[in-house]
């Protein structure tokens, strides 16, 4: 089975700095694939290499198993949606949408017909002769999508297209993008620094940090089984407790920490006698019973009530912050600010990762 997009050992250097360092991954046909990472992590560079605006310093980009080396952006079966959308301000809506067809020499009447069809698809019928400046933010967004879809690309590249929208519209457009993707079956390669966006829309997510690919996985896997400390910290909230691995048995590692011996699933790079860090999600923490054998001791700073959850902010004796998300139903028994608290968690809900992996 052929891949929709394949990156083979891609490196991109700008002078002495490596914006992208030896990255490989594949995207399957019809997949909604996101690249997630903080700004400057190299995700935009990767997108521009796939689109053909940049040529990699080393490695190959394949689309539909064809090597793209030497092909310009106008020769690739991709279409890009830009962060600024880059709609042509001097052309009416329909000419924008039909621009790619114009480039392919499609006759005018046929272009117009196709543009009108796409306007139906994006629920803007009759907007063909409007000016771009007359559209609202969400309408521009949809025109940009239609313009990219008009050329029937094998892969649609999206460069944080929702970042300019306000929160409500952004959430609405997420659902819409996902629906369009399912309806058309086009492969989406989406880049964003917003993890909730990536987790909510994607089939799979690639997490990047400082030019290095950290992990490629389905959203739930990323959240539950992070492979690197970066992923554990970047995706969702987490509490990190450093320690040394005492022993590993049945996939459960026991760590000696400042809070005594704590257990968690053994993740990558965990071996007896080596340093490791235990990661546990706020919602996995509960108030420990008084006789619990091992627990995380801390002092409560404050409680933020958020509806379904209460966020309990605490600080350990060595000054590390601990965050626990407690269901509202249990808040009656929660300690008050200034009081001591002991947190417990099930080892299955925590993961230990080797510290040697190193934070980027």
């Amino acid at each position, binding site marked *: 089975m052929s891949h929709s997009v394949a990156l083979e050992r891609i490196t991109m250097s700008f002078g002495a700095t490596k914006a992208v360092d030896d990255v490989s991954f594949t995207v399957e046909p019809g997949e909604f694939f996101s690249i997630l990472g903080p700004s400057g992590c190299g995700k935009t560079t990767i997108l521009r290499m796939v*689109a053909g605006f940049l040529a990699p310093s080393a490695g190959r980009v394949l689309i539909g198993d064809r090597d793209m080396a030497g092909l310009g*952006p*106008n*020769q690739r079966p991709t279409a*890009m949606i830009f962060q600024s959308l880059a709609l042509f301000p*001097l052309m009416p809506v329909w000419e924008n949408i039909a621009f790619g067809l114009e*480039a392919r020499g499609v006759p005018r009447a046929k272009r117009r017909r196709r543009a009108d069809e796409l306007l139906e698809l994006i629920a803007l019928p009759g907007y063909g002769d409007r000016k771009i400046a*007359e559209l609202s933010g969400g309408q521009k967004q949809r025109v940009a999508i239609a313009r*990219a879809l008009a050329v029937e690309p094998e892969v649609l590249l999206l460069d944080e297209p929702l970042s300019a929208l306000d929160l409500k519209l952004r959430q609405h457009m997420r659902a819409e993008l996902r629906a369009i993707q399912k309806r058309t079956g086009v492969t989406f390669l989406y880049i964003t620094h917003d993890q909730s966006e990536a987790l909510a829309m994607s089939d799979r997510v690639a997490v990047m940090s400082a030019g290095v690919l950290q992990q490629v996985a389905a959203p739930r896997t990323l959240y539950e089984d992070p492979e690197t400390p970066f992923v554990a910290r970047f995706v969702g909230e987490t509490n990190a407790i450093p320690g040394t691995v005492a022993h590993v048995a049945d996939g459960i590692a026991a760590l000696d920490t400042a809070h005594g011996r704590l257990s968690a699933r053994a993740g990558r790079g965990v071996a007896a006698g080596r340093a490791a860090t235990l990661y546990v999600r706020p919602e996995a923490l509960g108030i420990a019973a008084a006789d619990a054998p091992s627990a995380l001791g801390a002092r409560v700073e404050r409680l933020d009530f958020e509806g379904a959850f209460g966020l309990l902010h605490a600080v350990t004796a060595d000054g590390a912050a601990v965050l626990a998300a407690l269901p509202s139903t249990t808040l009656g028994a929660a300690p008050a600010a200034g009081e001591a608290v002991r947190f417990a968690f099930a080892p299955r809900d925590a993961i230990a990762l080797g510290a040697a992996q190193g934070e980027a």
Partner: protein
Amino acid sequence: MTDAVALPPPATPVRTPLATRAAAAIPKILFWIYVGAFFVYLFAPLVVMSAAAFNTSRFPTLTPWLGTTTDWFAQMADDAAMWRALWTSALVALGVVAIAVPVGTAAALVLTSLHARARSVLYALMVSPLLTPGVVIGIATLVLWRQIGVGGGLLLIVLAQASFISAYVMLMVAARLQRFDRTLEEAALGLGATKLMVFRRVLLPFLRPALLAAALLATLQSVENYNTTLFVRGFETPLTVYIATKVRTGLTPAVNALALVMIAITIAGALAWEIARRLEARRAATPS
């Protein structure tokens, strides 16, 4: 302009001595006298010149006023030499626009694609014709082409004028280019357009207003040029040269009639330009 003197008196009457108030008003009065003088200076010569077109006096003047007539306009319209001069100027302007607009546009585009150091050198070379006296441009063009056996005439007028008018075009196009969003070009390329199509469909339409303005400016600069033209004209007589020689060979109010017509065209053009600009601004301010 709200004038402090015109404000209603304060509730508790604080009496300022008249002398102090007068002293405070002096800079303001002086300023308005200056503004008045400035505009008298600016317009009095034009008014005098225009008005003289209606005086029956053979020499263009207001004093003495010998009687009102419009004969000079008829005489101007009958002046075949004037029409020939106008025709020559039009031909030259056409040639200059045909050269300077593409050249200046290309120069602005080349400039934006260069790195800082090379850019500043090339930029200096490109604006240098603007800092060169017009007579020098004319002379330099004349001596170069004489070596090839080409004397002064239409061709040299066009080339000499184009050498500095191209720089004006370059500046206007470069100013517009600075506001161009390069991602539009990437978007077009990404949709499969060839580089030629990107230029034709995306960049050129964006530059259009600047190109039209540049063509207009080039025309004006060309028609009104005298210093450069004087040296390369050969046996041609464009309008400015024609007017200047009239001063020697016998100035009559027919020249004033011509001047008045040109002033009227100018004012009409300036007003049309301003109205178009305001309409455009209003349209931009009210999206549906």
